[in-house]
């Protein structure tokens, strides 16, 4: 467990449908027994019960030893914290310990084909029927739905209500009858995204989080968790030196001095400086949070700027590769180069997923700057 991760595929997402290598399973078990897959969660639900300070020590110690986290995923970053904050006692008992043990892989059913950035206009409907809701509709961008055991989702339970109202937050077992999943192929190739279809799926009432028709406030609480998680994605430690500089030396000129193409050198500098500014801003946000100042909507600049910066970085890598960026398949095509080109294609989605850049700018204008509607 001390080998560096090579790709997303090396991560352990848990769940019953995926097989993991023996050492990964063993490591998960060892950590889960101590509750250290979720170190700050309460012990009574199987968590580590550590204070934030002690959890930090644990994380630092693991990083020092080069140990990788035993478990990843939205269960730990989103639905777990949400249930601990908003769930019923029953729901906590049922789901939290299983999440800690990595037994359940969760996916998120938010977006719909007709409602990307506009969550309030969703179409998937849930009609009460005895102790159940009957669910019909379709979700898109359900990451890992084909591997997931459970889904949390938003459904319209009162079609008469105004757009933002009449929505309920539900937990759904992916084994339920009437659930169909279809993986989505992206422009960069295969992805973990899926489409999920519901045909008369029965969801017991006990799986409602919060009030019936009160899903909007639950969704907003969840969005906060998501945004900070995405912001975090862009902070990458690169102890092995700047890969942009290394690429420029490989593809443009091999000297150890000034990079031969001054335009590329300047673009690298811009990206590096902007990365630095973003890292400082992340630290500022984190320290302010620690100091008890609540992270306000200005954290939107992290998502917005982090996305745009990564996209610029990928554009620059394409420029450095030059004609070497063109290969896709066939003998003699360097798979590392193909991977970089696919990363560029994939990066075009950064400014779309998790709230488009346009939505982020709207939020800043409204909530931070107070500009009128």
């Amino acid at each position, binding site marked *: 467990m001390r080998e560096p991760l090579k790709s997303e595929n090396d991560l352990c997402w848990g769940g019953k449908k995926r097989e993991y290598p023996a050492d990964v399973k063993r490591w998960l078990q060892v950590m889960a027994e101590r509750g250290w897959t979720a170190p700050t969660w309460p012990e009574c639900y199987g968590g580590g019960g550590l204070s934030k300070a002690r959890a930090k020590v644990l994380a630092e110690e693991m990083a020092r030893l080069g140990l990788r986290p035993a478990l990843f995923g939205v269960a730990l970053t989103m639905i777990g914290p949400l249930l601990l904050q908003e769930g019923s006692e029953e729901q906590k008992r049922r789901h939290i310990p299983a999440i800690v043990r990595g037994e359940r892989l969760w996916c998120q059913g938010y*977006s719909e*084909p*007709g*409602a*990307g*950035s*506009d969550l*309030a*206009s969703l179409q998937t409907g849930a009609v009460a029927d005895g102790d159940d809701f009957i669910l019909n509709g379709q979700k*898109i*961008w359900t990451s890992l739905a084909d591997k997931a055991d459970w889904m949390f989702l938003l459904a319209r339970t009162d079609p008469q209500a105004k*757009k933002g109202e009449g929505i309920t937050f539900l937990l759904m077992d992916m084994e339920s009858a009437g659930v169909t999943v279809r993986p*989505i*192929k*992206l*422009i960069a*190739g295969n992805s973990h995204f899926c489409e999920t279809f519901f045909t008369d799926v029965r969801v017991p009432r006990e799986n409602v989080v919060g009030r019936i028709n009160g899903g909007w406030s639950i969704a907003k609480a969840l969005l906060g968790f998501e945004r900070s998680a995405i912001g975090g994605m862009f902070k990458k430690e690169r102890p092995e030196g700047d890969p942009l500089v290394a690429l420029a030396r490989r593809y443009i000129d091999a000297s150890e001095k000034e990079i031969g*193409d001054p*335009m*590329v050198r300047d673009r690298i500098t811009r990206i590096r400086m902007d990365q630095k500014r973003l890292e400082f801003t992340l630290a500022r946000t984190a320290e302010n949070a620690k100091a008890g100042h609540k992270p306000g909507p200005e954290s939107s600049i992290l998502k917005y700027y982090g996305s745009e910066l990564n996209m610029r970085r990928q554009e620059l890598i*394409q*420029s450095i590769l*030059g*004609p070497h*960026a*063109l*290969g*896709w*398949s*066939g*003998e*003699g*095509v360097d798979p590392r180069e193909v991977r970089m*080109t696919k990363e*560029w*294609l994939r990066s*075009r*989605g950064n*400014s*779309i*997923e998790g709230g*488009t*850049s*346009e939505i982020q*700018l709207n939020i800043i204008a409204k909530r931070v700057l107070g500009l009128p509607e």
Partner: protein
Amino acid sequence: MSFVLSQEQRLLKQTAGDFVKSRSSLKRIRTLRDSADATGFSRDIWREMAELGWVGMLLPEDDGGSALGYMDLMMVMEELGRGLMPEPMLSTTLLGANAVLLGGSEAQRRELLPAIARGELLVALAYQEPSGRFDPHTVQTTAEPSGRGWKLRGEKCLVLDGHVADRILVSARTSGSIADRHGVTLFLIDPREHGVLVNRQMLVDSRIVASIRLSDVAVDESAIVGEPENGGNLLEAILDRATAGLCAEMLGAMSAAFEMTLEYLKTRKQFGVAIGTFQALKHRAAILYTEIELARSAVMGMNQALDEARPGASALVSVAKVSCSDAFLLAANEGVQMHGGIGMTDEHDIGFFLKRARAAEMTFGDAAWHRRRYAELEGY
């Protein structure tokens, strides 16, 4: 009145547009990709294009062509670009035929050009090498005198349509060192020749190219195209013309991507209204429109200069290529962004334009390379 299309040009554009619509579709492009079609384009469509006179349109009538110019060619290439048509205009009409037209001997012209114009002969140009990026003068492939002919040895990459070409033009160094302008000679070889290894590769935009290894390929004196040692200048002239054709193609493709996006802005609803009502998107669409119109002007200005053989034409080729590269990438990026999540799926067609934008940018020199070239040409 050179920026105003003539009656004939408008008719040609119309014909080309109708042809693309009736013979092709983005679905065909997708099928060619997904079926891993060995040819990568349709030989039937190519034959029809030849019959319509487009394959040989730049050639004199004596050579079997229609003696038209680059402004005329633009009418056709733009429409082919709209449909992302992969038929081998760039390799055969723009690189191959131009090489023979500009540098070929009487015998070579007579042998090759009419066959090209009839759509019977595909010709590719192998000038790029793995270490040379975009520079046509970086040539490590060597041609050494051997008996009464030459022996070619080296490696070429990114040879457009090299996998199906009946003849391949190869740049090889006959003197000087790696990046010298002087000392490069063009040879015409038959890929079935002993020692030629053609390796098929698919690019990001699913067009097909070849990397080619030459292991002591023996050719005789008659294989030389153009003045020996002076192939560098010939190459530049060929590439200028091919770039003109590529720019027109890019213009068509970016226009199609923009129209697709504009349509989406008008029909896709969010928060209860069409997203095209949002002013921020409106302004970005207007800026994109401006860039596309400026690119169109640049392409037209370049074509005039080529048609009139003006001295500053090469610099204008760079202006057009920079304009088209930047505007096409912007159109593709904004296209994906404005389509939102659906634009990221392989199922949607907008991604094809994004991929073509990248590949076209990297063909015949990217924007940075052309800006540097322009400054050199203009002497500062």
